[in-house]
């Protein structure tokens, strides 16, 4: 655990060095290819501005479109359902087929997993891969957007997006924190009570708002996604319930209220049940702002 966090910290710092040196080059930096960035998979060098990007990561797809690199994207994986304009294909990020990816003749592949040596296999074909795994905090998420800006030649747009996200989120946090004071939240990943603690990325949203997360007490293993017992949820009586399993599993306020014993929970009594689209809650891209907005309106209703 410790060693991996040191590694991550090292990677982030190395990336910052690259970033700072890139920024020092001035306004011409966006056309300053070749660009070298450092991700969890090591250094990646992009020799010229990519024109045929394949994204195997739904989060990266959202970010690429948000920074205006959409026209450079030729294919996205089967899970990339946002934005609608993205060229969704049958490519899989979980069980990727190197030949199928190579058939799109990409000059850059962005992925969030590296199953069965995907990165090295594409590397042998001379295709650079940016590996952006799940971010564990906002800094990591912004860093990925910044790096996507650098490798696509959309650095300025990426910087604007990040500044805009930070400003909007900062404003929501400032107005909502006082309302959230002393309130607790239960985030539901699936109807068998898998939840998200503060160690997870979504958990950072609740922490930023100052909500107490009932999953924290159950996350002794530190996975970020403990499975809670029903008894514990009912007895903790959270003030807010956030459902991130509305799409996958059809959960809604009425199904939650119908669960045995749940009618006693404060959030169920006051109707403080927030529905958040599964994909927004499981990604770490630009729609983070929508998540904050949903939370802020729920807190305003309380």
């Amino acid at each position, binding site marked *: 655990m410790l060693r991996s966090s040191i590694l991550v910290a090292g990677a982030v710092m190395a990336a910052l060095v690259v970033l700072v040196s890139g920024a020092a080059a001035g306004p011409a930096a966006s056309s300053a290819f070749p660009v070298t960035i450092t991700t969890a998979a090591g250094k990646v060098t992009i020799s010229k501005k990519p024109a045929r990007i394949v994204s195997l990561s739904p989060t990266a797809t959202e970010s690429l479109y948000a920074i205006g690199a959409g026209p450079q994207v030729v294919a996205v994986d089967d899970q990339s359902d946002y934005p609608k304009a993205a060229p969704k294909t049958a490519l899989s990020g979980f069980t990727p087929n190197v030949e199928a990816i190579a058939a799109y003749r990409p000059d850059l592949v962005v992925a969030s997993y590296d199953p069965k040596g995907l990165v090295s296999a594409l590397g042998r074909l001379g295709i650079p891969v940016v590996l952006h795994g799940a971010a564990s905090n906002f800094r990591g998420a912004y860093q990925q957007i910044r790096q996507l800006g650098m490798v696509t030649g959309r650095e300025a747009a990426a910087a604007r997006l990040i500044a805009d996200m930070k400003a909007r989120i900062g404003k929501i946090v400032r107005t909502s924190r006082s309302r959230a004071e002393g309130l607790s939240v239960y985030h539901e990943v*699936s109807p068998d*009570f898998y939840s998200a603690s503060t160690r997870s990325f979504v958990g950072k949203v609740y922490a930023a708002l100052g909500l107490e997360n009932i999953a924290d007490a159950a996350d002794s*293993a530190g996975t970020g996604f403990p499975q809670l*017992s029903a*008894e514990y949820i*009912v007895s903790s009586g959270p003030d807010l319930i956030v459902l991130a399993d509305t799409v996958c*599993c059809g959960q809604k306020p009425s*199904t939650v209220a119908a669960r045995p*014993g749940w009618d006693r929970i404060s959030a169920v009594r006051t109707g403080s049940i927030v529905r958040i689209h599964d994909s927004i809650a499981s990604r770490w891209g630009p729609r983070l702002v929508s998540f904050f907005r949903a939370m802020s309106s729920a807190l305003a209703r309380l």
Partner: protein
Amino acid sequence: MSATAAKVVSPAGAVRPRGIAPVWAVAAVAFLLGAIVIGVAVGPIDLGFRGIASSLAERLRIPGISSSLSATEESILWEIRMPRVVLAALVGGMLSLAGATYQGVFRNPLVDPYLLGVAAGAGLGATLAIAYLPDGLRGQQALPAAAFVGGAVAVFLTYSVGRSASRGRDTTTLVLAGVTVASFFTALQTFVQQQNADTLQQVYTWILGSIPSSGWSDVVLVLPYVAIATVVILVLRRVVDVLSLGDDEAASLGVDVRRVRLTLVVAATVGTAAAVAVCGLIGFVGIIVPHAIRMLAGVGYRALLPLSVIVGAGFLVLADVIARTALAPAEIPLGIVTAFFGAPFFALVLRTSRGAA
């Protein structure tokens, strides 16, 4: 051949099935009752023994006593914990009974309730439901039905393949057919799962097995199947002893081997499929419990089958207590607990019984 048959009918014969020795019957019932008391008293939320006792007394309308639990604690006790204990008992009893029945019918001590492909078939059914039924609630609600149907289809296929190969006379053929059908269904299941990687987590948690905190609804769902299967098997328990000697011996004693075997297998399978449909795959119970009883009490099927129901029920209730309290307020999948605590216990029983022999 006739010598073996003679042994069965001879009163002095070593393999003559015996009834339940009173001491084992008492021990088994005491174990189950103890397990239920622990199951109700222990949970991630401490309700206090006196609180539980007072709540129970109030529900039993014992005059002068009213529950000292808060409304929330009442809900936790009666709507979450109690049904979970009952469901664990039903499923544990069913899986052990089905395991013991299969072991007798197929004359193979290594057989478990999933032998004829119930698990693989139910797994495919559940995965198909998760992956292809419309997103949302209907998919969730259809899952147990899909798992049940999948399990039943797999066993039917196994039986058809086994029968056509050996005209139903050879149990080894049936077991091999089960292995074949199970691998085929597992392959299909893995393929569907791999094609729908987004559903991986849901399928995975289903396969790991657990007793859901779904209140009384799942108890009501499982109860009829488990009750009918248990009654059918227990009524036929003496015949299992005869079957375990071999088909020819059983036939010479006037048993309609094929029909009885089919009845037993169908009953055990239907009960297992119902348990699997609601709780996923809970391994090890169907093997470990009957064997532990056999080694400790050294009984024939006539006594083994009812003892399996009682001890299996208690075993799974205790295993579920560990699943919901060991890392409280987090949970551990039950299938992990049954194997983790079951395997060393079984090794111990194996060692002591061999040492004594």
